[in-house]
């Protein structure tokens, strides 16, 4: 009886974080729903117990249904029949099991049929689901669209769409177009107002749309004629029952094959405006995108965990030269590094999820007409908003890159067998590859994160972590990390000398951002180890790994001369 939640103490650890008490109290508005809804919690203990029990269901369904279905789903994939998408059989069963268990709309308020969970357990569920089937976690995770509708939609839209989520209505967010990928300002799908029918009409093409034939679609479209930038874009919601969108094709992909990626044609499709005109990209999509980035973080951690467990199992079973391969230094280094990387990205993921959780709950309270929002709460909101914004690109960057590294090393541990279709690890390797690309490439995460280096916010946060007291046995590790932080500062200073707006600075941006990321993850691991020794090894191993990486980047930057950029630019001339 596999349960992907109860078998994972390192995941469960993060549910016990001390900030959860504040988060849940705010989310539950001091437990105001108790008595109004028979499943609402009475107090913190009750709420956290419910989180635990519900995550256990997620773990059970993932272990018993999603994971066993993953191989067939990968082989079978979805199809287009009569301009509509038909999921693979396994995908349908996954969706049905999760729907019947009431696991859609986890964070939606109870009045819309949701569970009103805070963000942290939702991210945990996303991680668990991805461990079972990385591709399926897209279909499940797109329930995040409901959050956008809830945050920005009118009451009419909320009442129309949100109650459907818990009943299993699927969602998609339709942003990308053939000529608008990373650069969403170039979106051209046209939205015109139809006076006669009092609705908007969408016309045009969307491409690479995950779960493109969903029941509820959020569509970015150009509502302001004659504009060509972000300010002419608005956000719309479209209901599939209108049958005005055709699926032209679905992509044949390297990985996440169970998750349909569609090219869509909107044929005068009726739609409703979400929020205000012109704020589509500037405000709403950016909010949705941040959620999606954290979603990819959870997806990455889940997939990495799945691959790592396969690698560990195989390394124990497989014998060469008369002993299990786990006993060879080159193999156990790989395995321990995988473990440390997963512990590192997971602690970063939940640190970010908590910040987002605080931001979301406080932001919701600030809009509550019947409640006084104190100055202190406003300050707290700002603090966590900054933290969330600052950490989100790091989560996306590190977790997706590490998921790829872990899957790569897993195949390496398997040797020739890992290259064969006989084992699930080749699927995981293929599934991992998209993670560094969609919802903003790693390069775009660096662009988003470099601001934190220039402004010094990462440095300030690292120093805040350093203020936390640790047990005597962790003092030396703490001193080690402080020393490492000083090297990081010297490296930033060296880069600053290039001018923070220079091409040379941009060229080195990833080195700088990664160094900050290592320090943040190492400090978080130290804090975790200080609470629970199960993280002690990973904290040490990651610190050594970070040191080597920071030294490497530091050497590069110390010896960097802007003149070399020309060589880089001309090296690949056609």
């Amino acid at each position: 009886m596999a349960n992907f939640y109860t078998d994972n103490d390192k995941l469960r650890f993060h549910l016990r974080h001390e900030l959860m008490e504040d988060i849940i109290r705010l989310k539950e508005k001091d437990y105001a729903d108790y008595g109004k809804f028979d499943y609402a919690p009475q107090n913190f203990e009750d709420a956290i117990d419910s989180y635990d029990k519900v995550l256990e269901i997620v773990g059970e369904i993932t272990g018993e249904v999603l994971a066993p279905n993953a191989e067939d789903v990968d082989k079978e994939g979805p199809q287009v029949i009569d301009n509509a998408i038909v999921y693979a059989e396994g995908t349908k069963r996954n969706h049905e099991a999760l729907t019947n268990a009431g696991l859609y709309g986890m964070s939606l308020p109870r009045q819309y049929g949701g569970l009103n969970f805070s963000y942290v357990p939702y991210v945990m569920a996303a991680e668990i689901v991805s461990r079972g089937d990385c591709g399926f976690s897209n279909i499940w995770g797109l329930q995040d669209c409901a959050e956008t509708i809830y945050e920005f939609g009118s009451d009419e839209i909320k009442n129309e769409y949100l109650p459907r989520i818990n009943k299993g209505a699927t969602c998609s967010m339709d942003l990308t177009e053939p000529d608008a990928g990373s650069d969403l300002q170039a979106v051209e799908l046209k939205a015109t107002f139809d006076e006669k029918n009092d609705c908007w009409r969408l016309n045009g093409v969307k491409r690479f749309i995950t779960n493109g034939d969903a029941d509820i679609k959020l569509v970015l479209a150009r509502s302001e004629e004659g504009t060509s930038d972000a300010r002419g874009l608005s956000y719309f919601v479209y209901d599939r029952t209108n049958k005005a969108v055709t699926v032209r094709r679905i992509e044949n992909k390297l990985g996440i094959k169970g998750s349909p990626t569609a090219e869509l044609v909107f044929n005068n499709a009726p739609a409703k405006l979400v929020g205000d005109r012109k704020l589509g990209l500037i405000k709403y999509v950016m909010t949705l995108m941040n959620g999606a980035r954290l979603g990819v973080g959870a997806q990455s951690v889940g997939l990495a965990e799945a691959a790592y467990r396969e690698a560990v199992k195989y390394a124990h079973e497989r014998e060469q030269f008369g002993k299990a391969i786990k006993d060879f230094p080159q193999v156990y280094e790989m395995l321990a590094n995988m473990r440390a990387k997963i512990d590192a990205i997971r602690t970063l993921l939940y640190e970010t999820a908590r910040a987002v959780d605080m931001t979301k709950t406080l932001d919701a309270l600030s809009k509550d007409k019947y409640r006084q929002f104190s100055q202190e709460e406003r300050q707290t909101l700002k603090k966590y908003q900054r933290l969330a914004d600052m950490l989100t690109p790091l989560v996306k960057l590190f977790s997706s890159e590490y998921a790829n590294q872990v899957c790569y090393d897993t195949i390496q541990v398997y040797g020739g067998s890992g290259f064969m279709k006989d084992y699930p690890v080749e699927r995981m390797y293929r599934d991992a590859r998209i993670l560094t690309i969609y919802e903003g490439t790693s390069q775009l995460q660096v662009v988003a994160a470099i601001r934190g280096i220039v402004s010094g916010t990462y440095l300030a946060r690292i120093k805040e972590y350093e203020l936390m007291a640790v047990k005597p046995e962790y003092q030396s590790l703490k001193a080690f990390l402080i020393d490492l932080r000083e090297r990081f500062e010297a490296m930033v200073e060296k880069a600053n000398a290039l001018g923070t707006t220079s091409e040379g600075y941009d060229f080195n941006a990833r080195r700088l951002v990664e160094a900050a990321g290592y320090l943040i993850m190492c400090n978080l691991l130290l804090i975790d180890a200080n609470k629970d020794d199960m993280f002690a090894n990973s904290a040490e191993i990651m610190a050594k790994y970070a040191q080597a990486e920071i030294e490497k980047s530091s050497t590069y930057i110390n010896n960097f001369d802007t003149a070399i950029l020309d060589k880089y630019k001309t090296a690949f001339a056609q």
Partner: protein
Amino acid sequence: MSFKIVVLAKQVPDTRNVGKDAMKEDGTVNRAALPAIFNPEDLNALEMALEIKDKITDASISVITMGPARAAEIIRDSIYRGADNGIVVSDRKVAGSDTLATSYTISQAVRKLGKVDLVLCGRQAIDGDTAQVGPQVAEKLEIPQITYAEEVIGVSAQSIRIKRRLERGIEVVESAFPCLITVHGSAAACRFSNAKRVMKYKHAISASEAAEKGVDVSKLWDEKPYLKIEEWNADFIEADDSRLGLGGSPTKVKKIENVVLAQKESINLSPSDEDMDGLMKELIAAHIIG
């Protein structure tokens, strides 16, 4: 007119993953060392009940289990998955029951519920593997029985059509209500717990459990009657004491043997008549078969 479904369920030691300490010195099952689980085929029966409930308007499902106070765990589990309520039949007097005494006790509990349209239970329990309790309950209730059910082919408020999974094929039979159906492990797996039901019913508790925890639940039960897990004793179900427990059980265990397979190494046989013949002779000689 409401349609009443009763599911008979048993909490059993998980004999599927037995470790070294699964048996006691005297050869009996060491229940303390094995996790207590919902008997797997009873879960298939619960799923069948839930499917039927989905198809018949105004149907309700009650789960009856006989066992110690902790058996309330499977009542909660059943409710999480969609059952409406449940009853633990618990009494010192029923300890040591064989299939005859068990089926008598359970049939008395079912009678106590009044009009029952359909009784469902697993084919057999993984601790005893007798497959006798279901049929015996049907006999005592004097209602028709369909055993080895795999699938509901059709159901109305008057009758049910069932596909039976038999050793050499399948058989489709139909019965009017009331009847009893024993469900085979090849039937659909039980649906999972529902998140909202778990949060709503997780505080459901029986009187014995409350007493063990030392909590007063009278207020809780007043405010939320759905959180009370009924506990019935022998008197309540109007049972004849002489037919209960050890005294009511004609089955006597003559001897229990702890079989330890001494031979560890494997042998390779070719798929030839000669090798198969040799193997059969060896197995018969060792009294493993025959």
